[in-house]
């Protein structure tokens, strides 16, 4: 009764871009990123992005990274440190609602990765890709009021605050509009 046209090759996402910067490579998420992402998602570093999540919630979010790519044709890339080869954060556009805006996201997974301009470097490459090859003409970024580092990146990238709009997930914060690469 059952016929299979199964290719013994493991299913994989193909066609994702690789973005290169001076110190980072932004590449497709892969299964080996899971422990680093899980540890980030469980940490207090997520205070401005929905709060710590347990392993089950984190795993669903991690798996959704891959699904988002397949379903929308864009999604989060993982920034890898060229020197250590370690994943240090995720950067990418996401869109949860068909009628919603594309949201640019950037997160460094560890405190050790902070303070060296790595997030700005990765987010700049992200913006170049979004408004270049991907063909976006508009995107937003949602930033918690107290997330000073993220506000700084949004401004550096040419984002302008949309007056009167707040992030979907918190009343205290700003939504930035992006219409292209400004710097």
């Amino acid at each position: 009764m059952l016929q299979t046209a199964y290719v013994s090759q493991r299913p994989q996402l193909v066609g994702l871009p690789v973005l290169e910067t001076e110190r980072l490579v932004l590449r497709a998420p892969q299964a080996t990123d899971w422990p680093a992402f899980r540890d980030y998602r469980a940490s207090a570093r997520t205070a401005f992005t929905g709060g710590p999540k347990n392993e089950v919630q984190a795993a669903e979010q991690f798996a959704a990274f891959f699904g988002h790519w397949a379903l929308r044709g864009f999604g989060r890339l993982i920034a890898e440190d060229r020197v250590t080869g370690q994943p240090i954060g995720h950067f990418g556009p996401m869109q949860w609602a068909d009628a919603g805006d594309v949201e640019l996201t950037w997160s460094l997974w560890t405190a050790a990765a902070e303070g060296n301009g790595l997030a700005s470097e990765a987010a700049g490459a992200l913006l170049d890709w979004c408004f270049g090859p991907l063909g976006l003409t508009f995107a937003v970024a949602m930033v918690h009021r107290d997330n000073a580092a993220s506000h700084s990146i949004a401004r550096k990238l040419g984002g302008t605050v949309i007056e009167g709009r707040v992030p979907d997930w918190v009343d205290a914060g700003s939504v930035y509009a992006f219409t292209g690469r400004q710097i």
Partner: protein
Amino acid sequence: MIALSSTPVLSTARLTLRAPQAADWPFWRDFAMTDRAVFVGGPMTEGLAWRAFCHVVGMWVLRGYGSFVFSETGSATPLGMAGPWHPINWPEAEIGWTLWSAGAEGKGYAHEAAVAALDFAFGTLGWATAVSYIDPANARSIALAQRLGAVLDPDAARVDPEDADLVFRHPAPGART
């Protein structure tokens, strides 16, 4: 072209089963946001339905297999989903199934798709055993599990020890009648 590659396609007498794709999303959404989805965590908001569907697709990459969307062969309308499913917190691997609309019920489609999923899991994937976690109030799903030859396994671990889900254990395909 961004795509999920190297995914299998299964054929049964009436159905084609394949990995989920973007065109399935509105059908899943319309299922997940209604009471029909009450036994799989619904009804969900659109945002949660979206993340849940992304999760389903992502499992294909992370596990190397996942839940199949099925439709009548030659039709573009997805009817539901059936397949192997093993998120991180499941005590063991499951065969799950959902029918997305009332109109698809009563025709044996879920049974036909579940048989294909079981054959795939035990055959191609080489599983030694499989369970289905079913809410005790989900009479139609319980009936399907029993029709598939699955029996209650009272000793099997539940996803959440606090909840009342029933665990049905499937016989290997050779033992199924």
